[in-house]
């Protein structure tokens, strides 16, 4: 598969979650384990541009595809997250950014409701949700 632009040969149990392969095999530790059932979004990566929960995606489903992790993302949303102070412990942040970038790629100027609907699968236990919404709107404006 292609990971952050580089072709990588993976030797792993095809049923291993993509998340373990990225973290333990390729030392891409930006995507995080949070729940193992695709419900917190901390493990979110892009698969051919679409956001997926890598903790429940078997690596065989990613064979031959393009994977983008937080380490491969350079987007105004990252600056906006810093500027809006939209994090506390930061453990959810990579997943938030990847999900947010997927939204902005699809919809460059999302409404508040569209942001909430798209981002609702990502948990921030520290409760910085409103700041993340503000950061996504700010990044959308910066892009426009």
């Amino acid at each position, binding site marked *: 598969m292609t990971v952050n632009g580089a072709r990588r040969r993976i030797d792993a149990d095809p049923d291993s979650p993509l998340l373990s392969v990225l973290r333990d095999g390729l030392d891409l530790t930006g995507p995080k*384990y949070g*729940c193992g059932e695709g419900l917190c979004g901390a493990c979110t990566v892009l698969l051919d541009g679409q956001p997926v929960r890598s903790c429940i995606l078997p690596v065989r489903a990613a064979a031959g595809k393009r994977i983008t992790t937080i380490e491969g993302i350079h987007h105004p949303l990252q600056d906006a997250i*810093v500027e809006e*102070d939209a994090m506390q412990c930061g453990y959810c942040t990579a997943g938030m950014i990847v999900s947010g970038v997927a939204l902005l790629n699809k919809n460059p100027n999302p409404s508040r409701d569209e*942001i909430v609907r798209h*981002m609702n699968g990502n948990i921030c236990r520290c409760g910085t949700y409103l700041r993340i919404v503000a950061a996504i709107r700010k990044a959308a404006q910066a892009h426009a």
Partner: protein
Amino acid sequence: MPETTLQIEPERYELAAQPTYRFQVDRRDFLGLLGGGLLIVFSAGAQESGRGRRGEGPPQDLDAWLHIGEDGAVTVCTGKTEVGQNIRTSLSQAAAEELHCPLASIKLVMADTALTPYDMGTFGSRSTPTMAPQIRRAAATAREALLDLAAAKWNADRSKLAIADGKIARADGGESIGFGELTKGQKLTKTIARDVAVARPLCQSAPKVAARDIVTGKHKYTSDLTRPGMLYGRVLRPPAFGATLLSVDAPSLPGVTVVHEKNFAGVAAPDAQAAANALRLLKPEWKREPAGGSSGGELYEALKKTAAPGNADVHGSLDEGLASADVKLQATYTVAYIAHAPLEPRAALAEWDGGKLTVRTGTQVPFGVRAELAAAFGIPEDRVRVIVPDTGSAYGGKHTGECAVEAARLAKAAGKPVKLVWTREEEFTWGYFRPAGVIEVSSGARRDGAITAWQFDNYNSGGSGIAGLYEIPNRRTAFHPAESPLRQGSYRGLAATANHFAREVHMDELAAAVKMDPLEFRLKNLKDERLRAVLHAAAERFGWGQGKGIGMACGFEKNGYIATCAQVAVEDSRIRVLRVVEAFDCGAVVNPDHLKNQIEGAISMAVGGALFEQIRFNDGQIVNPRFSLYRVPRFSDMPEIEVVLVDRPDLPSAGAGETPIVGLAPAVSNAVFHLTGTRLRSMPLEL
């Protein structure tokens, strides 16, 4: 070895979750340690920096806290941990402000038992009121020493020197010199004077230190770390609390280490998948104890039945107070067990080097975990080093070291470093919970709104914040510890949440009974100026008195004053919080934007405990140990939030991570009553 009892929060009621493991001491290691010279050599090395002990005050020699490198970089050491509360940033600000140097030239070394002075732990909202002044005194002492050095170097009048932007300059515009050039990396050997002059916080927002590493995915949490040759661990969990492991059959697998000692069994394998597979192949035989007990109504009965009398705080005479009352009320409130659910589960990476143990782990109590590890393996604390990377949140849930002990046990058997990351289900099950509790209140008030009698009994959920600041002549408050069916411990705003919920809902009930506006009723019974000020501030910003479904609450905890106003809607019996205004006074504001962030975060987290979080259990098992079964707040649950900071630059700064969580649940319950006429007395609130 002496038995070590882990004290979680000694300064107030916190239920101490006892260590889970104690392994057999290897007699040979033990004697070797005592007989040889290694112990002395190691502790002499550690003495360079890991100074201070339990039961002593913090060391007051400057070089335990602060070092200036040849490049002018300032290293400041503290035993506090960064768990998202942004204490790394605000403590760096404290040092930079005293040294008059850029924030970027401060580097904080945090929570490393070999490098930082002894620290009891990061809890109780103590970092800002106690550690920030300590770091200010250290930095101010260093500043004075630097001025002395410059004055001597130039043979100049010290009062004619200015210190700014990381440099010392002659006030007449002559030569200037950087900190690094001046000290040339030499130790600053000074004693920190208790009365060294320090400044008040500047009340300046500064961005989170390390924010850039977080948004690029570079920051390494414990669960991201690796070591050469590292194995991945998994632990065999009992089918229920209290079960005993009788035997384990394990197939021999290449590269896999299996450990079975007493009630502990686990595996270490070259990768996570192999560890999971090896764990599945273990064939354990368990003996289950009939655990009994379950969540629901009977839990609260059981807590009351097992409660101790406790010490009552009594003023005046309840009988006289009730006799003079026009209205009398009695009500019972309950709070459920809830989980911290930090997004980074407990994690530890343990490594043995001969008889020395190093564990990197996410904990709020690094020195306590060091003691726990030493006790578990029967080795002196000097041979254990605990390092805490900035951690993926905790909320009071990471005080204990069971994950560290498990990783260390596996690493000892494997002879290689082992990383153990708890699964979400383990995190929900094998940590500890915020205690459930029952609170009974009886009260009386006159028709003019004066409260004449107040009896308040808290069963099991803790004594912090039990007193309140209302002026009530006849009152009796008591906390009654009880037997908890679940392992319980610290939590953000632990007992104060329960006590504020019961008190502030009851205040709303009394206000309704005497037909007074809830704000007016509170003010009638309140003299404390700071609490009155936040009440006025919140009510004014909220537009109190307008609209349907509004409620308020106020309170005082850990030297912070809080008032919360909320507006709710009900859709299909589902409560939705629409809008929250919270005013907060924690003394002098250090970093206003980060303070607002903490308050917003506390309100957001509080939505969960108020509306839907509840640990369900039955017969020794947690029934809902996953996010699919245990709902936490999400984007769609967020109200509009407005924060009003009541800055008191004339007063010392109090901590702010906890107190802002206590007002939301009662304000929401009171708002539901305002909207529907239904009184909700149990957290989580359900219509």
